[in-house]
């Protein structure tokens, strides 16, 4: 498992080292606002370091003001302490800035199953032009691409509100960021 990447997913995690064991435990820590996603699915875990007398988990916030970060770092500590680790430290770093491209494929599937349209890859359709609509946001319920932006801001900073024009169901879209 690479340990010097920008983020860590566990798509193909084979447990070889102590760090991998810890990562496996972190799969139990969820995003409190989107509870189907683990913090590894979300791509906010940067690194796990085993220092002399402490475990350090390095994470990165999704948005500057994400109110879930304090709870997430608390839950990381709790998860590791429950499994016998002592002296767990959670460090938050900003750079490089998190992007939805770091979300795992498994995470995107889970989002969709949960009723939230997963983010499109940023290099394809993140459009910052005025009044431009991100094209091809797929309805997570009926799979139609015939959908409409209702509001650029949704129930949390990371989501926008859409409505499917075919099945008429409103849904959240996890904005590409």
């Amino acid at each position, binding site marked *: 498992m690479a340990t010097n990447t920008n983020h860590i997913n566990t798509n193909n995690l084979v447990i070889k080292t102590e760090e991998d064991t810890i990562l496996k435990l972190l799969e139990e820590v969820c995003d409190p606002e989107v509870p189907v996603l683990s913090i590894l699915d979300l791509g906010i875990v940067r690194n796990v370091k085993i220092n002399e007398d402490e475990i350090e988990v390095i994470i990165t916030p999704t*948005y500057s003001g994400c109110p879930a970060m304090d709870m997430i770092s608390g839950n990381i500590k709790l998860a590791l302490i429950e499994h016998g680790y002592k002296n767990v430290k959670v460090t938050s770093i900003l*750079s*490089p800035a998190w992007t939805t491209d770091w979300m795992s494929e498994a995470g995107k599937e889970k989002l969709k199953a949960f009723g939230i349209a997963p983010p499109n890859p940023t290099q394809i359709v993140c459009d910052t032009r005025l009044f431009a609509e991100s094209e091809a946001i797929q309805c997570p319920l009926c799979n139609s691409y015939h959908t409409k932006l209702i509001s650029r801001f949704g129930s949390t900073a990371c989501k926008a509100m859409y409505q499917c024009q075919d099945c008429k169901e409103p849904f959240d879209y996890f904005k590409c960021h």
Partner: protein
Amino acid sequence: MQYSDSIINKKETEDKGSSLTAPLISGGERPYLLHLADNNLILAQRNGEWCGHGPILEQDIAITNITLDLLGQARNFYQYAALLMNGESYKLPGPKAPFIPKAKGMERAVGEVTEDSLAYLRTEREFKNLLLVEQPNGDWGQTILRQYLFSQYQYLLYQQLQQSNNEQLAAIATKGIKEVSYHVRWSSEWVIRLGDGTRESHARMLKAIDELWRYTGEMFVAVSYEIQTAGEGMGVDISLLKNAWLAKVGEVFQEATLPIPENVFMQTGGKEGTHTEHLGYILAELQYMQRTYPNASW
């Protein structure tokens, strides 16, 4: 927010006379960081007044989402400012030092500067935000215009700040600009919608311009700490952004059928602590709890 035990230990052995009101400011970087933070905090506080009062639910949610982004950026700047003020070794423009704050920890040593003490325990004269961000919400049009004028400025500022030789400032800007580009897009769309909307909405936008334009000149008049930090490669030479800002605002105003005012006397002073009467009231509300019950926490 606590950074490391060594900071606290060091603090205890240092001059005990220092407090928040003592001169914390040595180099230009500290007031500069506070200026950047205060802009975000005060605008967040103003926008937060809309919470539950937005014209429609979606836009209520939008303005409070923007507020959350601004608050998050303010925290990033305050946390870094607090770190510097607590005497963490810090050199400019020397080699980049790793910045690794602790994620959480509430114990506070006596006299320690924290993001909270910077927000809750400074007086009006110590705040360095732009006059623009402290102006009252007015109607929805005035709030929208204030947001747009500021976001357009902040976008250009962060664009440059990403190139800062200070790693942490560059990181905060790189993180923040993704959020600010949403703010620019949302607020400029609203300026156009209202300016080029009905006779009533157009008239209200004209009134909003009349109220707010006089506070825009200050953005591009560099004060001492901006000049100093720009010279060191940490800050942004803000005066260079004026034309780009005017051009962008001009495009949006044109589409909104709104005029760019000419020959307006520009008010200044916010960046150096001389504010309009509004800031005192904002702080009275913002700081009430900590002032009344010192060190109260959740």
